[in-house]
């Protein structure tokens, strides 16, 4: 078991013929993911890394049974690419593309939801379940199969944390990179129930950032509905208000979205809070339930 993807997931890559699309198709396959098709309008009939390319998502799905998509299409066309995947029946999309206007994301999110389609991202590293599948761009080298779930709004910071967990001799069940945009398809509150019911996850590392109230919302959910141990970290404690710290979503606006507010909320519901990212692996080791009788 794992979260959202497994060894049977058949991945389509939208924008496969671009540089990123090609590189990450190779990496996903190296990780063990079944990448079955690519789609780029006008490039149907080509093949990239041995993967057949189709002109439309509908054709790709019809010919390969693709049931998840990884979108690398540039921001002005990302909305269309995602909606095409929904109309073609795909119900899981990892959107790697950054700088998608949030007004577009509102349309994507609400249309997708009305059809039962889930978005991870945008501007996100995606999903990796070591030993099973990967949809996205998280580096292969940081993983080792294990029982730690990771859910994060960050990119590279997540890679470093996941790597730290590996270096501690532990491994991950699934790592979900949700993205740092103001409007994300899947928030902590949407992701935590998936980890709660995943029998292969024993503990979850939650990596937050300043901006918005996703961590506060997560804390409320954890307080009421989450039974597994949580190790939490929130980046941006020293960030000044009113400045966007790299991610479109990482901004303290009108006094809302401070790291302090988030940390307090998480601590109040029993999450084990790391002050610095390098403290995470030790906390994970400390609170990860020990295998009984194994």
């Amino acid at each position, binding site marked *: 078991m794992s979260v959202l993807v497994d060894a049977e997931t058949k991945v389509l890559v939208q924008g496969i013929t671009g540089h990123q699309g090609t590189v990450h198709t190779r990496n996903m396959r190296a990780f063990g993911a079944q990448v079955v098709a690519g789609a780029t309008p006008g490039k149907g009939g080509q093949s990239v890394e041995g993967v057949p390319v189709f002109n439309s998502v509908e054709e790709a799905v019809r010919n390969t049974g693709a049931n998840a998509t990884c979108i690398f299409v540039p*921001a002005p066309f990302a909305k269309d690419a995602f909606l095409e995947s929904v109309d073609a029946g795909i119900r899981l999309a990892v959107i790697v593309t950054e700088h998608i*206007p949030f007004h577009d994301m509102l349309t994507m999110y609400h249309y997708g939801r009305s059809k039962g389609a889930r978005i991870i991202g945008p501007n996100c590293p995606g999903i990796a379940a070591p030993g099973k599948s990967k949809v996205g761009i998280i580096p292969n080298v940081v993983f080792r199969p294990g029982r730690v779930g990771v859910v994060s709004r960050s*990119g590279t910071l997540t890679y*470093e944390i996941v790597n730290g967990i590996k270096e501690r001799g532990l491994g991950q069940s699934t790592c979900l990179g949700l993205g740092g945009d103001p409007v994300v398809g899947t928030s902590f509150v949407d992701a935590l129930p998936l980890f709660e019911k995943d029998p292969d996850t024993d503990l979850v590392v939650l990596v937050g950032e*300043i901006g918005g109230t996703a961590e506060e919302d997560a804390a409320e959910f954890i307080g009421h509905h989450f039974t597994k141990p949580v190790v939490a970290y929130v*980046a941006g404690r*020293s960030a000044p208000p009113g400045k966007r710290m790299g991610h*479109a979503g990482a901004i303290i606006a009108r006094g809302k979205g401070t790291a302090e507010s988030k940390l307090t909320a998480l601590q109040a519901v029993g999450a084990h809070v790391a*002050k*610095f990212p390098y403290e995470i692996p030790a906390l994970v080791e400390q609170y990860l339930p020990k295998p009984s009788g194994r």
Partner: protein
Amino acid sequence: MVKLAEWRGKEIFRKYGVPLPKGHVVRSPSEVAAALQSAGIPLPCVVKAQVLAGGRGKGGAVRFASTVAEAEAATQAILGLEFKGEVVREVLLEEKLPIAKELYVSLTLDRSRRLPLAMASAQGGVEVETVDESAIVRVHVDPFPGLLGYQKRQLIAALGVTGPVARSVDSLLDLLWKIFEEEDAELVEINPLAVVGDRVVALDAKVIIEDDASFRHPEFADVKDDRTPLEEIAREKEIAFVQLDGNIGVIANGAGLTMATLDVLAEFGGKPGVFLDLGGTDDPKKVTEAFLLMAQAKPKAVFLNIFGGVTRCDTVATGLVEAMRQVPPDAKFPLVARIRGNNEAEGVAILRAAGVTSLSDLKESVQAVVAAAGGPA
């Protein structure tokens, strides 16, 4: 963020038909007389500094004038003023209206609900953060059907207006919704929205256009916003670059890692002066550009924190050494580097060969850079 000055927000309002006072923007006292005449602004009039910060009224940045000469004098007095860090370069001359009541309305985004959020309060004219929650009505708007009649009735009830004033608010709300959607706004705020006779008039305009939507809005390409000149250059080069008030530059890849690095730095007594997120780039040209930009900010020391995931550390190291070479001699800065991940050993060897301090422990690296910048604050 593309924060529009009041006069520019009002230009958008005018395009959509939002009721406004008669007004005209000027950039020198010599333009005042002609502006008053061409825009038909009666006397007495209002003279308003065009700065992005709030609280202008109390700060002397809004004045009244009863004659053309007074308007010229007020313009003269306001232009060049520094208001909360911004220098006033534009002044808006406006009709002074007989205000019966000051209201508040806005549209923004509720990130948690992924829905636009309309807010209204009968307590306008003050910063909305200072208004009691119970005096604000919030209505979530679904982007599909858009702002609905019953929602407008809820907002109008919050404003406490009825009859023709209510009808005037009703039309206004439709326009605000249209502006919010069509202009890709993050925020459309009218505070105060004034009741004047039997209608409402937008006395102020706060419009923020979403940065990521700028490809759809070339008309705002020249808006300078409240970015520093270096931030402006960085924006053109598409580098995430934020100037802070310390003296240590931080370069990292990824927003989260960059923020985490600043946090550790602050913990050990360092004062971050620049936040520079290289993002997912592995383009050596972009790395060089970033270093040259960093040099212009004149940091006392720079800390580079890179995690090589897809990128290899040796490739990054080679790029770095080249970039450091290109920094002009008078702008050189001490550099502490921490590169981890893929091909880490090879990368570290390259950096050390080039004389760059390269450490793998985050705490140690941060302590080294704080020392290089002259010790903890």
